[in-house]
């Protein structure tokens, strides 16, 4: 991996040069919150942000998307509009890059998803390091650092951004800027280590994920699931804002006066009563408690069995987006707590 540094005052110059590689999108402020948006001017970018309302997932798996159009007797035509649009996501946090790497495994695995893959190929990612706030627990989820999945990744070390070059495209971006980037020296290495150390100490939240799937297995009958079921509003907010929730619903939208139409997908949530409802009327997860339980089990246990790690990256979005304050860290802490049953 190539490591270079960019003087901070040259960042805007870099941003203007890099636009030749695609349309620039970055976090911008929206009433005190942040959203990834197309930049109208570089000064709108907010690189010191906590988290965006929606994760970058929306670029690779849009909330709603037409898959193909169909017409009886003619078959179907895939909807490919916009799939090859070149975009640069500037300022993606490590946890969100990690989440995209997780989505890669899902959408490039057993059932490759051409829509996702096309977008992933055409959207560049320039990551940026961040400081944890009260909802961040990415370090516990091993997602506070990424070594792949980005084209460039910037670390703020005071007067410079140190840049990890992740791909050939990232390298092209560096080369296109001429001599903006400089080699790192011993002082820079110390600056990086200092930053790494400081970040590590800044976390206010911590969870232990070692043996967590086993504890989930043991606590399958825990009363906590009923309690959460009574609290959960099934509003789906946690799934919408989750960088690794990838469930979608597929429906045909028939045209007026014909049997032709379009097939589209939209984000779904396992918290919805309709999620596990099948054609016979059977619902495999009817009660709300079984639905929220499923969400936790899939993230923290099922995904580990399938992919070797939890699908949660500790971004804290579900904690800040839940209207009734359901908090994944508190749930895990409670599951881990010794009940002291013997002394009862």
């Amino acid at each position, binding site marked *: 991996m190539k490591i270079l540094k960019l003087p901070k005052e040259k960042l805007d110059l870099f941003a203007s040069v890099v636009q030749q590689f695609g349309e620039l999108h970055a976090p911008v402020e929206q009433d005190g919150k942040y959203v990834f948006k197309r930049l109208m001017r570089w000064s709108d970018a907010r690189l010191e942000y906590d988290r965006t309302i929606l994760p970058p997932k929306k670029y690779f798996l849009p909330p709603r998307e037409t898959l193909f159009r169909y017409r009886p007797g003619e078959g179907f035509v895939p909807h490919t509009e916009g799939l090859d649009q070149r975009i640069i996501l500037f300022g993606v946090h490590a946890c969100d890059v990690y989440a995209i790497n997780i989505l890669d495994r899902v959408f490039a695995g057993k059932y490759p998803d051409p829509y996702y893959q096309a977008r992933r190929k055409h959207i560049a990612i320039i990551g940026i390091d961040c400081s944890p706030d009260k909802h961040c627990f990415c370090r516990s989820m091993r997602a506070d650092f990424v070594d792949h999945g980005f084209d460039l990744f910037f670390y703020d070390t005071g007067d410079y951004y140190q840049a990890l070059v992740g791909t050939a495209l990232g390298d092209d971006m560096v080369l296109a800027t001429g001599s903006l980037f400089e080699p790192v020296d011993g002082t820079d290495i110390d600056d990086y280590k200092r930053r790494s150390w400081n970040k590590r100490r800044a976390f206010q939240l911590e969870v232990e994920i070692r043996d967590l799937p086993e504890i989930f297995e043991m606590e399958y009958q825990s009363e906590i699931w009923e309690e959460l079921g009574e609290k959960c*509003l099934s509003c*789906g907010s946690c799934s919408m804002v989750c960088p690794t929730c990838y469930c979608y619903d597929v429906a045909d939208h028939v045209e007026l*006066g014909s049997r032709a139409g379009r097939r589209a997908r939209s984000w779904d949530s396992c918290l919805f009563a309709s999620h596990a409802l099948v054609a016979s009327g059977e619902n495999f997860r009817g009660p709300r408690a079984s639905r929220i339980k499923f969400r936790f089990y899939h993230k923290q246990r099922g995904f580990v069995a399938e992919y070797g790690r939890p699908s949660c990256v500790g971004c804290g979005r579900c904690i800040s987006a839940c209207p009734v304050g359901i908090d994944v860290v508190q749930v895990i802490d409670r599951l881990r707590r010794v009940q002291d049953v013997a002394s009862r």
Partner: protein
Amino acid sequence: MSKPTVGIFGLTGCAGDQLVILNCEDRLLDIVALIDIRDFLMASSENDEGCPLDIALVEGAVLSRRDADKLRAIRQRSKILVALGTCAVWGGVAAMDRGKDRARLLEEVYGEIGLTYDSSPAQALHEVVKVDLGIAGCPIEKEHFIAAVAALLNGDTPLYPEYPVCTECRMRENNCLLIERGELCCGPITAGGCEARCPELRVPCVGCRGPAGDTNVPSFVAMLEQKGFDRQQLAARLRTFAPEGVAQ
């Protein structure tokens, strides 16, 4: 194949849903090319008031014997009856205080003569006759009406979102009025399908589309009480559009 015969009717309501149909201006010609609208008083002075109908679309709630008789007659001549709008589907605004003493209300509004009026507590259509399909909304969404016509013509029923307004509000990446501003937003318990039109404009959801498919009202109310809203205020807001079974 002959075009299906259709009737569009209004009981007690604001006629807003029928207006939405008339407002499908760029699609109206397509629609009338596919269906034979025989009875639609709001749009035509010449109607066939007795013919059998393949599809009847009925807006408004039942608020009188006259409404109930009219609805039963429509049901009798129709193969498929569609409840159009939140009043028809849930009772709507008129059903807000239907537990109250009707005679007292009539007297309060109209004076003594009110007692002679044909007036009954508001009922949703399904409380009076069998309803085959409901399209909620105050008013309904144009696209939902067109989707219903398109699906019914194919012998199918349209699918509408059962998830709440929050889902679409999050998809649109709006700031949360409930969490960030502590406003009384009914998004979590109200049926989606409106693309969170109001919260998108920073206006809290009043619940005009009626309850979502799966609502957790006790938890919703407890959360709002914690924010400092009193129970009565909440009950009034919740009862504006939702039937008492859902919002007690």
